[in-house]
């Protein structure tokens, strides 16, 4: 496919001797929402942590095979630069506790020592928070600490912080699993809007969520990619028995 943003080719990931991802081949198109679905321990999180090269930060972790970001092998790109192009939001909200809301949004710039004018800063804070659907709730308290926000607001702050770097791909690692239903709904709505601008790859345990928000779904089982297809197809007409067993709740 010519419009694929991310392409995994014969990709394997290991923790020491333990092979956690086996021969993954995947093409991810631009401006689509992809869900990685699968039971606990199947390697979902490892898969997306490989894409921004966070996996290799773990002692003993290594990979083989290739991942391409727009035709370029990511293992040839400096991980520091790669992570500015591939943003990641984690399972637990993790705003920087020493920084205000505005500084949290700008953290990717300030921590990297990138100088911005006051106008640029204000502009980035406002657009990022608007994109993360948080602006209206925090616009009067931008100088307060980010950790005073509620869990759902903190998570949207983390999304704003990631969007501020204008990434090409957005990785969401169970970004709503620690949140209440109202916050979850807000973030799902957000994903809907963000897919006009970004390619999104999300991991979730929540099948309803996968069905609601994603265009494509990949089913992972014990480190193997069982199948991937349009989300509708996967949920209504899975080709493999394992996929069917999982989505009908027979295991997982």
């Amino acid at each position, binding site marked *: 496919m010519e419009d694929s943003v991310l392409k995994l080719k014969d990709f394997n990931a290991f923790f020491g001797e333990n092979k956690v991802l086996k021969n993954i081949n995947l093409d991810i198109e631009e401006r689509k929402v992809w869900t990685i679905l699968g039971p606990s321990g199947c390697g979902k999180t490892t898969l997306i942590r490989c894409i921004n090269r966070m996996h290799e930060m773990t002692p003993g972790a290594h990979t083989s095979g290739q991942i391409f970001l727009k035709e370029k092998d990511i293992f040839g790109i400096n991980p520091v630069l790669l992570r500015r192009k591939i943003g990641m939001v984690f399972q637990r909200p993790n705003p920087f506790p020493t920084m205000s809301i505005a500084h949290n949004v700008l953290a990717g710039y300030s921590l*990297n020592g990138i100088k911005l004018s006051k106008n640029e800063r204000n502009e980035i804070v406002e657009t990022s928070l608007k994109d993360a659907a948080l602006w209206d709730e925090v616009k009067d308290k931008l100088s307060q600490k980010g950790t005073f926000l509620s869990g759902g607001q903190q998570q949207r702050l983390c999304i704003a912080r990631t969007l501020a770097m204008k990434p090409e791909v957005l990785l969401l690692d169970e970004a709503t699993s620690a949140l209440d239903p109202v916050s979850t709904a807000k973030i799902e709505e957000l994903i809907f809007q963000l897919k006009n601008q970004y390619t999104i790859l999300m991991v979730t345990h929540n099948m309803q969520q996968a069905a609601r928000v994603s265009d494509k779904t990949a089913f992972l089982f014990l480190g193997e990619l069982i199948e991937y297809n349009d989300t509708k197809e996967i949920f209504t007409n899975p080709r493999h028995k394992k996929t069917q067993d999982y989505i009908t709740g027979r295991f997982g």
Partner: protein
Amino acid sequence: MADPQIKWRKIKNDLFKGLVVFLSLLATLPLLLILFYILRQGFSSINWSFLTNLPKPVGESGGGISNAIVGTLIIVGTAAVMAIPLGVLAGIYLNEQRNSKVARYCDLAIDVLQGIPSIVIGIIIYEWVVRTMGGFSAFSGSAALALMMLPFIAKTTQETLKLVPNHLKEASLALGVPYYKTVLKVIVPAGLSGILSGAILGIARVIGETAPLLFTAFGNPFMSTELSKPMSSLPLVIFNYATSPYEDWHQLAWGASLILILIVLTLNMITKFIESRWKIQF
């Protein structure tokens, strides 16, 4: 409540609670007694001239300990300048590279260094610094105290940084922040209050050390601010005056003890203040 069994349980509860409170108060009793006794003994000798005058020869009344106060500040200050940067860096290293063999070896070495008796550190510094420099000096005293502070500061830094959650580090790395900037701008600031209070507690711990100063800074009856010369300090003054046969010198020793304890108390209060004020909720 009418049930006698529940009533009995309540009595047991109250008894236990009372016992715990009583024992906690009992544990603070020695401190209160020490403070009270030193306050009573030392208070009478403290006045403005005690703080600003130099010691007088035996037989002459009056005299102060200004040289010892200045000396303590210089010796401990120099020790802090040497030990704090090194200790904090060592603590960062121990926390960041906790899986490496070298770090585990350093960790052990720091534990052992912390256990070396202060008198032994005094002798070592005497051999290494005093003899090579050709005489007693304030600097050698600072070196001895720095050696005592170093493991304490490294350990408190390590313990503080251990509490900084890993997800902050990941958040920073995932934003494309290089590793060293992540450590310096995210991890260390998140533990700054703990590192600072550890450094101040380190100072409070060594400020009263006498043994390592006996054969290093040595003491000096005159005002000296030169690091290369012998220098007086509060613990040395207390040691010399208290072991002398003269009653009025004993008084001066009590006064100096009170000053020393007040300094230690102040440092401890500053630590508490920093911890409560700058404490970061994760």
